[in-house]
């Protein structure tokens, strides 16, 4: 029971920090609203484009490379999800776990080398 309390209290602190992190911008922007001037003017609300008139929507088609990097990120981030518990429990698992994890990582490294050879990692 005591330990459960400590556990819950520690996560309560994390929640408090989340509340503070959200509250500070909200409060500061609200206070700023009372202080700052408000003089609307059409020219002020145009999008900045180095001084020329902004033309068409800025959300254009994007380079596909960003998407491929996102995919690669997902693969290797999931790999770290497996590596973390392995690293924590490594003392108990021993050499066998090392070989097992080596096989797992080598498979992903083959994927990385494939992507490398396919020139996916090259940014133009």
């Amino acid at each position, binding site marked *: 029971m005591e330990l459960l309390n*400590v556990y819950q209290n520690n996560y309560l602190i994390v929640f408090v920090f*989340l*509340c503070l*992190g959200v509250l500070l911008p909200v409060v500061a922007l609200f206070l700023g609203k009372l202080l700052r001037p408000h003089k609307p003017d059409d020219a002020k609300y145009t999008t900045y484009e180095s001084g020329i008139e902004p033309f068409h929507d*800025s959300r*254009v088609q994007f380079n596909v490379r960003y998407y491929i990097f*996102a995919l690669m990120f997902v693969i290797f981030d999931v790999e770290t999800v497996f590596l973390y518990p392995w*690293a924590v429990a490594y003392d108990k698992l021993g*050499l066998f776990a090392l070989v097992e994890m080596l096989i797992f990582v080598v498979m992903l*490294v083959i994927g990385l080398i494939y992507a490398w050879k396919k020139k996916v990692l090259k940014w133009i």
Partner: protein
Amino acid sequence: MVQDLLHSSPGLANFAIFFLLGVVLLLVVLGFVTYGILAERKVMGYMQLRHGPNQLGGNWGLLQTVADVLKLLLKEDIIPKLADRPLFILAPVIAFAPSFMVLATIPFTDKFQFADIGVGLLYYIAVSGLTTFGALLGGWGSNNKYALLGGARAAAQMISYEIPLVMSVLGVILLSGSLNLNDIVHAQKGGWFILLQPIGFIVFFIASVAELNRTPFDLPEAESELVAGFHVEYSGFRFAFFMLAEYVYLFAMSALITVVFLGGWLPPFAFLGFIPGAVWFSLKFCVVIFVYLWLRSTLPRFRVDRLMEFGWKVLLPVALGNIFLTALIKSLFF
């Protein structure tokens, strides 16, 4: 007293006390940001053979940042007509909130720590990843070409360097056998992890500079090509929160490096143990901060293609190799 509080059952009273303590830390962090920015400008000034701010608040410009913040507070709030209003307003909050949340688990000394949770290191890495959304949403919501490019670059850079970042600390976790930051510090009694994990430290440090979006990896902001990157359209206090998030991350990352690689509050030699832990922590912390500032005034900005290739082709294989090297050494010699 705090121990009793931690052992009592959680309720509104506990929430209120933690809230007040959190506010105190928030004020300390804001104070750090104020003088961190001043220190950056002063250090960079002297490195570039000029004085830096020296008008407001004496020769040291002690009130310069305060004046800058007040100026930002009094600026008119402008949201472009074409912007996506809800996203535009939400982005600075999303960028700032995780930067403060990560401070919850960092042990400053053996007694001064907020949340002592078992997965402290994982919590830090997981929460700090959220800031990418702030940059991406800010860039997307502004509906500006520069901002969109900056936001996309920020996302690409942050996710690319997050992988070496999380993989380089795996060596530390292997040696200490725990994700709890207190346990990691206690595991360094025999020797700091910067000595046992030199490769891991170098990879972590390079990746952390990229995660912090600082020069030489400040491509998302790249003034000379993207004006200001994802926050072109932001002005006044909304812009201030992007800046604030950046410097709170600098604080958090320096504290994390101190804890994980430099032995936290532990003295470098046992006979120096009479000096309190807080002094050691702040000394190491200042050294890390100074190295970040030094890097900024020494190195020019990377090119975007080199940046991505460096992350994937150099840092990632090195970090992976370091994990298995550490595991092998550990099972052979320990």
